């Protein structure tokens, strides 16, 4: 992966496949602790303890198009290269939380990349799912919640290209405080 935002997209796609109806994305840059942490929390089907034990091993997948699952092992490798790691907690029938920590100043850390495009790609791919994005760096914070936007627009899904393009720019403008991280 060339960007951390692509990992976020990929991990959140696992949540979509797990039939989540609410997916919460968190990104926090902590300059003092020298970390960049992202989290993906969902209310999807969850994983059994057995699956959870082997899930960061590349041969674990419930896909049928191929025999290896790559998303979590790749994320694990890329965080560990920067002195960080991943934590996964999951309960069957309740949901899953994946938390990935990167060393902020590590030379092996890829850039955060286009977080705005990641979020809107998720929304357009699953217009019926609700997404929340929380971004934080020190005192600066931004929260984006598609349920609130749907309510404001009086729609049940966000699937109009013009609206999605506007929202991409809207999110981008509001997270400039983590731009080029």
């Amino acid at each position, binding site marked *: *992966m*060339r960007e951390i935002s*692509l990992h976020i*997209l*990929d991990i959140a*796609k696992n949540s979509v*496949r797990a039939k989540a109806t609410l997916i919460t994305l968190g990104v926090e840059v902590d300059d003092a602790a020298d970390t960049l942490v992202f989290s993906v929390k969902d209310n999807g089907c969850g994983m059994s303890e057995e699956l959870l034990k082997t899930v960061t091993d590349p041969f674990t997948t419930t*896909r049928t*198009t*191929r025999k290896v*699952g*790559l*998303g979590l092992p*790749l994320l694990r490798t890329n965080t560990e290269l920067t002195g960080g790691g991943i934590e996964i907690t999951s309960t069957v029938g309740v949901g899953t939380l994946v938390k990935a920590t990167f060393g902020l100043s590590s030379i092996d850390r890829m850039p955060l990349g*286009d977080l705005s*495009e*990641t979020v809107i*790609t998720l929304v*357009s*791919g699953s217009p019926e799912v609700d997404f929340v994005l929380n971004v934080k760096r020190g005192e600066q914070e931004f929260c984006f919640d598609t349920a609130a*936007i749907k309510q*404001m*627009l009086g729609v049940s899904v966000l699937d*109009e*290209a*013009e*609206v*999605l*393009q*506007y*929202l*991409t*720019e*809207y999110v981008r*403008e509001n997270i400039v405080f983590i731009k080029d991280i």
Partner: protein
Amino acid sequence: MKSLEELKAIRDRMQGQLASRDHVGEQDTRVVVGMATCGIAAGARPVLNRFMEEVTKRELHSVKVVQTGCIGMCRLEPIVEVYAPGQEKVTYVKVQPEMVARIVSDHLVGGNVVTEYTIKD
């Protein structure tokens, strides 16, 4: 600066036009982009977004850009499949953002498949 109030105003203005093109109809062309880990790692996200931009810019209301999971040919990602009514499926492989404008103008608008970007057996 973009604001949600402005978004609401824009959408209210669009409402009339939108009602008529809500659902994926029989006569729609579908552009399907593979968005599993293999596709995402190979660069599918910007490809998908270039398609969405081009299609909105040209107001191609009968073209729907949709995402799918793993298409099953990971080394050829990013993969884009085009399903046009009455035509066989066309599979574009190793698609890069620079290739999108041409697929849209030649194939989606002009009806001519860009064979140099398609899968070779």
